C-alpha cells in the first residue's frame, strides 16, 4: 500500500512535467488549429537562454520574466516570419515546417551548448517533502502549472481576446469578416504558447537536467496527455498529464515491469482514445451533412 502511494506521488510529479508542456500544445491548438511538434524544442531552447542568463549571475525570478517575455516575442516572430508563408498550404506541409523547426532548434542548441548535461537551479527550497518522495520543487512546479492552467482558462473563457483567438482557430474566414485581425491572433497564439513552453522548460529542467534532448521524451507523453485529455481543453490536458504519469508509474512498478512500461502506457492511452475518440474532456464535434 505504501509502495503504491509512493509510486502515485512520483507519478504526479512526472505527470506535472507532462502537463506543463501539454498546456503549451493546447494553447497552440486552440489558437491555430495546429499541433506544433516543435513546441518541446522551443521550450528547451528558451530554457538554455534562461541558463545563459543565470550563468551570468542574474537572479532567478528576473531571468524567469525575461525568458518568458523573450520567448513570447520569439514565438510571435516565428509565426509571422516562418509559418505565414505556409498559411494556406495543406496540413501535412505545415507539419513538415514544424518538424523542420524541431530539428533546427535541437541541432543549434547542441551546437551552441554541447550535449553535456547542465544543472538548472530551482527557485524553490531544496528540502524534500512527503518523506522525500517529492521535492519541494516538484510540488512547486505542479503549483505553477495549475496557476498557468487557471490563467489560460480565464483568458479563453472570459476575455474578448481569448474569444477572438478561439474564433480565429475555428473559422478564420468568418472571423476576418467580423473584423478580427486573423494574422495577429495567430501570432499571439504562438507567442503565448512559446511563453508557456518556456515556463514548462524552466520548471522541468531542475528535475530532469538540461540537455538538448531534454524534451524529446517529454513531448510524446505531453502529446499523448493532451490528446487523451482532449486537445482543446486545457484542464483536460493537465488531467491527462497527471493520469499518464500515474498510470505509467503504477503499470511499470506493479503490473508489467519496466521492460514494457512505455508500450503499456501507450496502449492505455490508445485504449482511452478508442473509447472516447475526442479525449476524456474534449468537445465532440458533430459534422452535419
Amino acid at each position, binding site marked *: 500500500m505504501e509502495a503504491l502511494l*509512493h509510486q502515485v506521488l512520483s507519478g504526479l510529479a*512526472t505527470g506535472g512535467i507532462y502537463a506543463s508542456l501539454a498546456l503549451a500544445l493546447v494553447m497552440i491548438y486552440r489558437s491555430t488549429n495546429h499541433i506544433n511538434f516543435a513546441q518541446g524544442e522551443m521550450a528547451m531552447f528558451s530554457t538554455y537562454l534562461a541558463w545563459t542568463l543565470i550563468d551570468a549571475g542574474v537572479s532567478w525570478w528576473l531571468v524567469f520574466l525575461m525568458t518568458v517575455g523573450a520567448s513570447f516575442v520569439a514565438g510571435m516572430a516565428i509565426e509571422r516570419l516562418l509559418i505565414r508563408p505556409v498559411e494556406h498550404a495543406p496540413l501535412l506541409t505545415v507539419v513538415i515546417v514544424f518538424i523542420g523547426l524541431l530539428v533546427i532548434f535541437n541541432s543549434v542548441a*547542441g551546437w551552441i551548448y*554541447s550535449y553535456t548535461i547542465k544543472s538548472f537551479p530551482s527557485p524553490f527550497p531544496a528540502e524534500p517533502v512527503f518523506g522525500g518522495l517529492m521535492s519541494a520543487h516538484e510540488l512547486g512546479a505542479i503549483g505553477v502549472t495549475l496557476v498557468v492552467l487557471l490563467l489560460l482558462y480565464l483568458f479563453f473563457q472570459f476575455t474578448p481576446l481569448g474569444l477572438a483567438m478561439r474564433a480565429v482557430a475555428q473559422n478564420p474566414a468568418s472571423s476576418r469578416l467580423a473584423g478580427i485581425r486573423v494574422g495577429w491572433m495567430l501570432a499571439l497564439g504562438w507567442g503565448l504558447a512559446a511563453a508557456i513552453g518556456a515556463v514548462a522548460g524552466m520548471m522541468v529542467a531542475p528535475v*530532469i*537536467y538540461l540537455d538538448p*534532448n531534454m524534451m524529446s*521524451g517529454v513531448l510524446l507523453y505531453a502529446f499523448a496527455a493532451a490528446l487523451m485529455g482532449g486537445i482543446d481543453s486545457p484542464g483536460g490536458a493537465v488531467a491527462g498529464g497527471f493520469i499518464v504519469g500515474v498510470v505509467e508509474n503504477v503499470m511499470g512498478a506493479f503490473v508489467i515491469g519496466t521492460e514494457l512500461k*512505455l508500450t503499456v502506457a501507450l496502449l492505455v492511452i490508445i485504449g482511452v482514445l478508442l473509447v472516447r475518440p475526442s479525449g476524456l474532456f474534449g468537445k465532440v464535434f458533430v459534422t452535419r451533412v
Partner: protein
Amino acid sequence: MANAYRALAAALAASLTLAPAAHAQKRYGPGASDTEIKFGQTMPYSGPASAYGTIGKAEAAYFRMINDQGGVNGRKLNLISLDDGYSPPRTVEQIRKLVEDEQVLFAFQTLGTPSNTAIQKYMNARKVPHLFVATGATKWGDPQHNPWTMGWQPTYQHESQIYAKYVLKNRPNAKIAVLYQNDDYGKDYLKGFKDGLGSQASKLIVAEASYEVTDPTVDSQIVALKASGAGVLFNITTPKFAAQAIRKVHDIGWRPLHFLNNVSSSVASVLQPAGLDKSVGLISVAYFKDPTDPAWKDDKAVQDYFAFMKKYYPEGNAADGLNAYGYAVAQTLVQALKQCGDDLTRENIMRQAASIKDLDVPMLLPGIRINTSPTDFYPIEQVQLMRFDGKTWVLFGDIVSR
C-alpha cells in the same frame, strides 16, 4: 642432419639480412602516403546518443595538435569523422563511404555496440582494421573469428564482475537491486554482474528495473527499487540518468551500497549536477584520470590535457570525462601508428595494434598499461576500484586484472 642445420642457418641468415631491408621500404595501403595517413570513424553527432559526439571532436582536435607538432613519422593524420545518428543502417552507409569512397586506411573508434555489430562482418570481410571501437561490449576481443576488430576500454562485463566479487566478499547476504538502461550496454553490464555472482545471482538480486533513453526520469524505478528492501544498488545508467538516480536515491532516504558504472563516473558531468554531498560513498572503477578530480590537480598529464582542450577544442567541455576518454584513445592510436614506421599497410597496422607491450599512456591511471597480442585483443584489462568521499574519488585496493 647437419645438412638440415646448415640449411636452416642459411635461411635464418638470409631472413635476417632481408628483414631490415623490408623495414626500410615504404609500404602503403589505401589512404596512406608519404604525407598523410587517412582514416575514418562514425560517431553519433545527432540523435539520442549525441552526447557521445564530443569524443569524436576531442579526438579530431588531438590529431590536429599532433599535426601541428609534425605528425606521426612526418605524416599528417587525416581523420574523417561522419555522423551516423546512432542508427545502424546509417553506420553501414557511412562506413562503406569511408572504405569504398574515401579509401581510408582503417577505422578508428567507431562508436556504439549496435553500430559496430552492423559493420563488423563487412570490415573483417574487407580486411580493414576496425580499431579501438568505442564500446565496452565484450564481444570485440575475439581475434579468432574477427581478426580485424579490436576494442580498447575494459569491458563492461569485466567491470561488473569486479563489483559482484566485492559484494560477495563484503556483503555476502545482501539483497541487491539493479537499475539498467534497456539496451546492449545495460544488458552487457547486467550479464557480467550476474556471471560474477555465479550461482548466487538469482538469490541475491531481488529487484531489477530498466529504463529507455527516451524516458524523461528514472524516479519511478528508484522508488520501486527501494521498496524491494535492497541494501545494495548497482546503477547502470548513462550520465543524465545517473545524475537523476543518485539524487533521487539520496532524497528518498535510501543509503544502499551504491555501485556506479564507470561510464557515468565523471565528477563534473554527473556528480556535481547530482549533488556532491549526495554522491558520498559511491563506488566505481577507473582506468583513466578524471581531469576534474581534485586528486589529479597537479598531475602533468592532466595539466597537458587542459592545455590541449583550451587550445585545440575550446568549445568542448574540458570537464566532460568523455573528452578525456577521447584524448586517451587518441594517444594510444598515435603510439600504435608510430610503431608502424613506414609500413603503413592494413596488415601491418593490425599487426602493430596486436603487439603493444606495456604501453604507458599518460592519461591512464598509474600502473595501468596497454597490452595486446595476437591472442589478446583487449588492450586495457586493468581497473582500480574507487570510492567518492564528497570531494574526490579515492582509489583503493589493488589494480584488478581480468
